[in-house]
């Protein structure tokens, strides 16, 4: 069918872009492993979040809890079992799924903002506890880090690891070892490609879900949950499943964060972190497949690069200008970059939502409409309902 041909094309295109990111992002100075890893990881997180928020319309404000639990689980896997990331990310995904089931089961008894506040409350409780009384498990403010194998069995597990599997295989360690995937070090570009492959896998699964009968039910829940009940659907298990799936994506993302950078801190669970993924999704385009990844990339880029443009760099940038004008321009731009990067972020949110309701993907859709004469009725109509209709809309247009 045509639509499935389009799906494959999108998947292949997406994969190609992700795998070529190190080259594609070079002109904007974003071609270094850490930022690329972060884009892939948060892209995955946002894709998963979109399965809940984009498809069902349920806005969770506590998804950072799953990132957090995923990170902690992975860290404990490194500390207790092995530095191989495979068991770590399996644990983080599975445990995050269990936690998501528990939280979802309770929170999904309510809808709308009541649901949002319930998820927020659970995540904030976990954050506060992880920061203080759960320090024996989380190492509190400092964060859980891997250590050298402990020599003294009385030493706290926070300060010395045991790594039974690695020890059983007689892996030699000098100092604190780094994470690996069957011997491949998970830092640098290897780490990025590892994350990228998982991101593509996650994208593929999200695409399948979106275009499945299950996904159609989720979209129907968003559209008119009440009506769906009267057509014989029990919406609650659908919602719980969607919540668990998105929680597992978040847990996996948390696991990957530690895989590329082995540390887990409580602040990952703070409400600002939950808010960040909401912003990424809305910024890119709620309910689209590509949008959330785009939003994640943009926000991470702002955080990493825009914040680094200090006065020296600005001055260089404007060095072609005459002295007075250069100082003036530098002064103006310093409001928005370097320490002022928050201002850029805030303005970006406002401008995009004001002029592009539906996020960046809506912008691309409008651009493509500009270039292709809007000949069929559908494009015209979909333009009036912004929230669902971007370029690669999730709603499969069964084109016969």
């Amino acid at each position, binding site marked *: 069918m045509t639509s499935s041909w389009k799906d494959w094309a999108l998947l292949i295109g997406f994969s190609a872009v992700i795998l070529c990111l190190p080259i594609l992002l070079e002109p904007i100075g974003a071609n270094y492993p*850490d930022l690329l890893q972060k884009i892939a990881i948060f892209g995955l997180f946002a894709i998963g979040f979109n399965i809940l928020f984009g498809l069902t319309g349920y806005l969770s404000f506590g998804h950072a809890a799953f990132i957090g639990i995923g990170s902690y689980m992975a860290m404990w896997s490194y500390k207790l079992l092995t530095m191989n990331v495979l068991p770590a990310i399996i644990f983080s995904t599975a445990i995050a799924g269990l936690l998501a089931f528990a939280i979802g089961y309770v929170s999904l008894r309510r809808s709308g903002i009541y649901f949002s506040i319930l998820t927020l409350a659970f995540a904030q409780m976990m954050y506060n506890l992880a920061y203080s009384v759960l320090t024996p498990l989380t190492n509190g*403010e400092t964060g859980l880090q891997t250590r050298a194998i402990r020599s003294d069995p009385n030493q706290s597990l926070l300060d010395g690891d045991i790594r039974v599997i690695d020890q059983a295989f007689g892996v030699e360690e000098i100092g604190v070892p780094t994470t690996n995937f069957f011997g491949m070090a998970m830092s640098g570009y290897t780490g990025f490609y590892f994350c990228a492959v998982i991101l593509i896998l996650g994208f593929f699964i999200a695409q399948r879900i979106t275009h499945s009968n299950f996904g159609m039910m989720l979209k129907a829940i968003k559209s008119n949950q009440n009506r769906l009940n009267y057509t014989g659907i029990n919406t609650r298990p659908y919602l719980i499943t969607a919540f668990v799936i998105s929680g597992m994506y978040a847990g996996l993302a948390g696991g990957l964060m530690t895989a590329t950078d082995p540390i887990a801190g409580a602040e990952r669970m703070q409400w600002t972190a939950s808010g960040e993924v909401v912003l990424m999704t809305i910024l890119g385009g709620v309910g689209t497949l590509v949008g959330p990844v785009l939003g994640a990339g943009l926000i991470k880029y702002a955080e990493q690069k825009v914040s680094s443009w200090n006065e020296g760099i600005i001055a260089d940038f404007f*060095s072609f200008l005459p002295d007075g004008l250069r100082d003036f321009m530098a002064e103006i731009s310093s409001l928005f970059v370097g320490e002022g990067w928050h201002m850029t972020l805030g303005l970006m949110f406002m401008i995009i939502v004001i002029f592009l309701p539906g996020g960046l993907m809506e912008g691309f859709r409008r651009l493509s409409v500009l270039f292709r004469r809007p000949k069929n009725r559908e494009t015209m109509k979909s333009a009036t309902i912004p929230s669902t209709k971007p370029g690669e809309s999730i709603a499969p247009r069964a084109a016969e």
Partner: protein
Amino acid sequence: MSDRNDLTRRRVIKSGAVAAAGAAATPYFFSRAFADGHGYRNAPKGDTVTLGFNVPQTGAYADEGADELRAYELAVEHLNGEGDGGMLNTFSSKALKGNGVLGKKVDFVTGDTQTKSDAARASAKRMIENDGAIMITGGSSSGVAIAVQGLCQEAGVIFMAGLTHSNDTTGKDKRANGFRHFFNTEMTGAALAPVLKNAFGSDRNAYHLTADYTWGWSQEGSIQKYTEELGWNTTAAVRTPLGAGDFSSFITPVLDSGADVLVLNHYGKDMVNSLTQAVQFGLRDKQVNGKDFQIVVPLFSRLMAQGAGESIKGIYGSTNWNWSLKDEGSQAFVKSFGTKYGFPPSQAAHTCYSQVLLYADAAERAGTFMPSELGKSLEGFEFDGLGNGPVLYRAEDHQCFKDVLVVQGAQNPQSKFDLLEVVEVTPRSQVEYAPELLGGELGPYNNG
């Protein structure tokens, strides 16, 4: 505000080929970082060397971060032979000549830690991977310092800690690639307790309010340990949530507890709020057990203390350095910083400035930027003239040992910067402890 604009203009003039350096930095594989034969990560190519300044630029500590950045820029100027040279002139080691480091012009990149471990590590990684920074320095909280120190160990660059006061930084979380100039809670306890005893007597009941996270506990433990040794009694030690904002529910029980000293193990905004509110509750006007009620803030920061306004008058605490010191080094630094920015530097600025000088000097003496060699030349290094009297960079834990300042909120401030007056300079010998006391292991150096 005018000083900001001023600053901007000056910073603009000082430009480097940083962008160019960033573009030239080829992508690295973390595991095989060097292909140029130097044998260590980010070995400087060409005639510049890039340092990474990782400070909070957003969030509660943004002003402190801005002050650190000012100090860094000043230090870079002085290393490159611009400006008046500052503490380079008073520094006991004369290896630095004001012509850069090892003949290379010093350049820098900056990043925002947001006072979050994740963000701080990400921004440090950017500076290492993308901008080719050979050393990372900065930060204004222990959580961030420990996180970034761990990263630098993995990445194989030197980390020169900024403001971090927790024991763990050079205790159980110490790393071979990490060095700290700032003091810690152990030294605060050792220095402060005798002064408190002299001022308030040995028969005192202390009530601790402690920020509920690692640094707070560390601080509480040290103060308790040293005051109890001198005969004080600890009535209660209550944990308060980080960022509690309103501390009234923690302060009211103090009134009735029979305690006559309140110890606020808070820093930053928590300190500002808890102190302001404790004073509002009339604690300082009270008489308990026939003695005047007292409040102690073990770690003072002048910058933050501004937020507490009038409340800090007469309050005891400790600090790493204060601009009112009269020694040659401090005077030179205050003069050079004050001339450039129009106000005196904070203790955070001082420690950051010193760290850059110490790093550069060590590189010069070692003849290389290679972390293992450079680190060894810092180990056991004795120096003077950087504002703290004679200082030792101890080899066993990469911690500086120096005199500790016990200060008091100024009763009659001469200017708005004159918030703290030095009560006593506790000599280094009194705050020294055995390296094993705080545990941890440095491990081997990592060159990348």
